[in-house]
């Protein structure tokens, strides 16, 4: 074990992962006592497929002290209230997976149980009427919840949809302003300590050497340090999540941007639609075992709702996770640590989670194996629980109209997921442990949306009279309506607070 104090931090690779790491480090540990160096090459393109995010991003933004309106403006962002899943359960069906909560938990049990009781006795099967984000999304409205004491109406939970390249650039400006140093260059050799195997320095193509104490591998799928150098190993999950390609292309806006992402199930995968202020990002995530790259790109191009603004690009990937994300003095963040398709917009979140964990266990003098193991365990757990949630979208389907869907419907799924689905079918809950990213509301939205109607519900839901139940539901519904009625349109909100400067160039 090295006993020297950690001083020099080297980040390999730019893009969102690299610059998020650099920005966070530059804010939290600063460049007085540390040096933060990021090595990237403009020659190596960054992926940037038009990102959608989840509300947890505000925690990261707050750590950095970002002004939200400025951030939105600089990244051509729009707001996101949730994801609309079209044709996943069956063709011509859609459901909405919102942020926020359905209704209000009452009498010690989740709202879902009360709602199930009401729905089973003839109530409206559309659960979205009890969720302000869903109703706002349906009406194309958005507004940040004004400060109000007491807060009597439901809060609006939201995230962002932004241009990933602009995001990286924005964070680069932030990090550089705080003393992070960018080194333009390609790494050609990684130098390790002969005995310990710790990484000591990187040799760049132009001959420069960059030394460091702590290395962060943000080099993307190849995992230059974590895999190519330190041989972490990769756990392959493609048998559960067969998609292994993504075709991405931007197109022109079609009217005002809607405040949500759309994921439409397709013949051999699914297509995303992410509206930004200046254009719409689109992509087809597919498995090349069920459709060729040519055909996928053609299909994507034919299904845009605006004029194409670039040729489609293909990304190749393998769904899975690094067996170890932190080895010796090197940790992987971003695509180098693992990949899960952007079905639930988790990519950036997983990077930010890793950054947060890094900061929590930030090493002082040398590396503590206990902390490293903890980091690895927790990152495994994060990826794994997200994986199960994503698989649920595929395996719980009524579709059997293509080979791909027949595969998905009948594939073997992890036991952990099997148990959850059974429990939900039996009594409308999944009992997700608190450490997991996706909570009861999320599981309920997706499992119910995908077609599982629970047979029963928690008995405590039957305690109050039907009249009292309806009275409570009417109040909750009223709160949702009042909140949404008081909201402006999404576009009007953007115009008022955070309209991006007009773009002359588009990516």
């Amino acid at each position, binding site marked *: 074990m090295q006993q020297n104090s950690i001083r020099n931090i080297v980040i390999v690779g730019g893009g969102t992962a690299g610059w998020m790491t650099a920005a966070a480090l530059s804010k939290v540990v600063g460049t007085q006592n540390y040096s933060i160096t990021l090595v990237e090459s403009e020659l190596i393109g960054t992926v940037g497929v038009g990102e959608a995010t989840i509300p947890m991003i505000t925690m990261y933004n707050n750590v950095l002290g970002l002004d939200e309106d400025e951030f939105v403006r600089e990244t051509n962002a729009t707001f996101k209230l949730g994801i609309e899943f079209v044709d996943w359960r069956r063709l011509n069906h859609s459901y909405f997976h919102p942020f926020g909560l359905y209704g209000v938990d009452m009498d010690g049990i989740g709202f879902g149980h009360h709602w199930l009781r*009401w729905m089973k006795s003839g109530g*409206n099967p559309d659960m979205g*009427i009890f969720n302000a984000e869903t109703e706002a999304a349906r009406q194309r409205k958005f507004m940040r919840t004004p400060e109000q004491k007491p807060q*009597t109406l439901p809060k609006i939970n939201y995230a962002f949809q932004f241009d990933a390249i602009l995001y990286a650039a924005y964070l680069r400006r932030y990090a550089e302003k705080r003393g992070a140093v960018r080194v333009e260059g390609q790494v050609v050799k990684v130098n390790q300590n002969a005995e310990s195997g710790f990484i000591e320095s990187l040799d760049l193509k132009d001959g420069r050497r960059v030394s460091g104490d702590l290395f962060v591998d943000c080099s993307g799928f190849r995992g230059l340090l974590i895999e190519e150098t330190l041989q972490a190993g990769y756990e392959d999950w493609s048998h559960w999540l067969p998609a292994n390609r993504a075709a991405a292309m931007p197109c022109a806006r079609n009217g005002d941007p809607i405040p949500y992402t759309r994921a439409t199930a397709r013949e051999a995968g699914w297509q995303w639609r992410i509206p930004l202020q200046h254009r719409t990002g689109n992509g087809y995530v597919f498995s090349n075992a069920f459709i060729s790259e040519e055909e996928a790109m053609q299909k994507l191009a034919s299904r845009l709702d605006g004029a194409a603004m670039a040729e489609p690009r293909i990304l190749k990937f393998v769904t899975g996770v690094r067996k170890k994300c932190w080895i010796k003095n090197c940790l992987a963040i971003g695509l180098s640590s693992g990949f899960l398709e952007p079905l639930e917009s988790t990519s950036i979140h997983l990077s930010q989670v890793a950054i947060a964990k890094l900061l929590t266990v930030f090493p002082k003098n040398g590396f503590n194996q206990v902390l490293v193991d903890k980091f690895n365990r927790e990152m495994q757990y994060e990826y794994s629980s997200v994986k199960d949630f994503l698989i649920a979208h595929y395996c719980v389907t009524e579709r059997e109209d293509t080979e791909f869907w027949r595969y998905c419907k009948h594939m073997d799924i992890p036991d952990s997921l099997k148990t959850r689905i059974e429990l939900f079918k039996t009594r409308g809950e999944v009992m997700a442990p608190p450490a997991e990213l996706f909570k009861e509301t999320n599981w309920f939205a997706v499992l119910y949306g995908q077609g599982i109607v629970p047979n029963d519900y928690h008995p405590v839901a039957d305690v109050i009279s039907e009249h009292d139940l*309806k009275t409570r539901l*009417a109040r909750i*519904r*009223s709160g949702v*309506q009042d909140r949404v*009625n008081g909201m402006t349109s999404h576009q009007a909100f953007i115009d008022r607070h955070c309209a991006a400067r007009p773009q002359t160039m588009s990516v």
Partner: protein
Amino acid sequence: MSRPIARVVVVGRDAAGWLSAFALQRAFGRTGLAVQMIELPSQLSAVDVYAALPALTNLHRLLGLDENEVVSACSGVYVQGQRFSGWSKAKPAFMHAYDTQGVVINHVDFIQYWVKARAEGLAVDLEDFCLGAAAAKQNRYVLSKDTTEAFSNAAHGMHLNARTYARLLKQCALKTGVVSTAGQIASVNRSGANIQSVVLSDGQIVEGDLFIDASGVEAVLIGAMPEAPFESWRHWFGADRIMVASGKRLSPLPAFSQISAYSNGWIGLYPLQNRTAMKCVYDSSGQSDEKAAEAIGLTTGMRIESEVVVAPLESGARARAWVGNCIAVGEAAVVLEPLDAAYLHVIQLGLSRLIAFFPVEADALIEADAYNADIAAHIRNIRDFQIAHYKLNQRFGDRVWDRARDMNIPESLVYKLNLFAHRGRVALYDHESFEIENWNAILIGHGLMPRTYDPLADALPREEQIGKFKGMLHFIAEEVRTMPSLDAHLEIHAPYRGAGAQ
């Protein structure tokens, strides 16, 4: 030898007919009474609406109807009151809410303190101290709880799709054992004062001990009886035509009916869950039907999106509702403009009093006189309430309205108006359907400001009075904030599921 009434024949149509049959069957069916309905052709169109006062809730309860189910089936809406606008060109609209204003303080009615405070510069309206009015204006549904019961008496009226309501009543009536024949009356066999039987156009002869005329303005039975001439009230209610139409559904749903006066009459908007019913009551000598239809659009800002149905209208009442063994219920007995939503209420009155006075001897209908006196008194008071709107209007320069303002009104109303104008006190007679708070609302709303107030109100020190007033307004605002919207309440408790589901 006395014998009980064995058989009642209801000759009627629509809500009046079916409520009569249903109510009598439910009250006395198990005591050996046979109720036979002769269903005359309906006079309801698809656009008709029944606007009901809160008392209808009691009738529904007695009939064993689940109100939310009725509202749900009839695309109905609960309302906290009626909003009157345009009755004075200078003053703003006012809300006639079905609720009290303020609370009694030291044995003195709240309105007295309010009149005094107004004279001292208070700018708050009387209706602002009414929980029901505040809820109505914010389109809320009032849920009564312990905290509000001490302060407020808020109750709900209803709007119901007329045809669906009539059909629902019919189904319920038939299910409880009413026997029904569809037909028309060809002739009536009378013996002395009593009807022995009626003869239908298909030749059927229907006998009965008691006959209910619920045939509406047609008054097929009572209309032919010289003992019950129709006394026209045209000198008080000049409108002679009524137009009904439909516009699109309002969102969010208003929790009140809107009654707008215009140059030649008035227009009512009655929100329902799937449309907004419109009524125009007007003087045909002042404008054609086409112009009246235009007036609907101009006055309400809403487009007519349906057929337009027009019918003649003549307000008035029969000298007697009960002649011999024939009792007229509803418009066969009294015809009123729908200004105060009393249409169903008049039917309910006729039936509830009939049940209370249901004859115990088929051959000695002694109850008739008491019934007639009771009903006549009730009707007089409702009529006076309605006349008050017209008498107090301040639409200067409109022929119809100037005439209304100048008309001679019944002594009973003169007395009421004088006492109120002097002192803000409502003189209630026996058999009133509207309470003090209703009279307060419309008299103050129309601008009849009392000249003086009860000197006993002076005993409350000014600071305390201001404190109490503030407390009431705060209480109302807080309570209304916790109430669900009318939309949400209906969605959960009484959602309209479309024309097919009944």
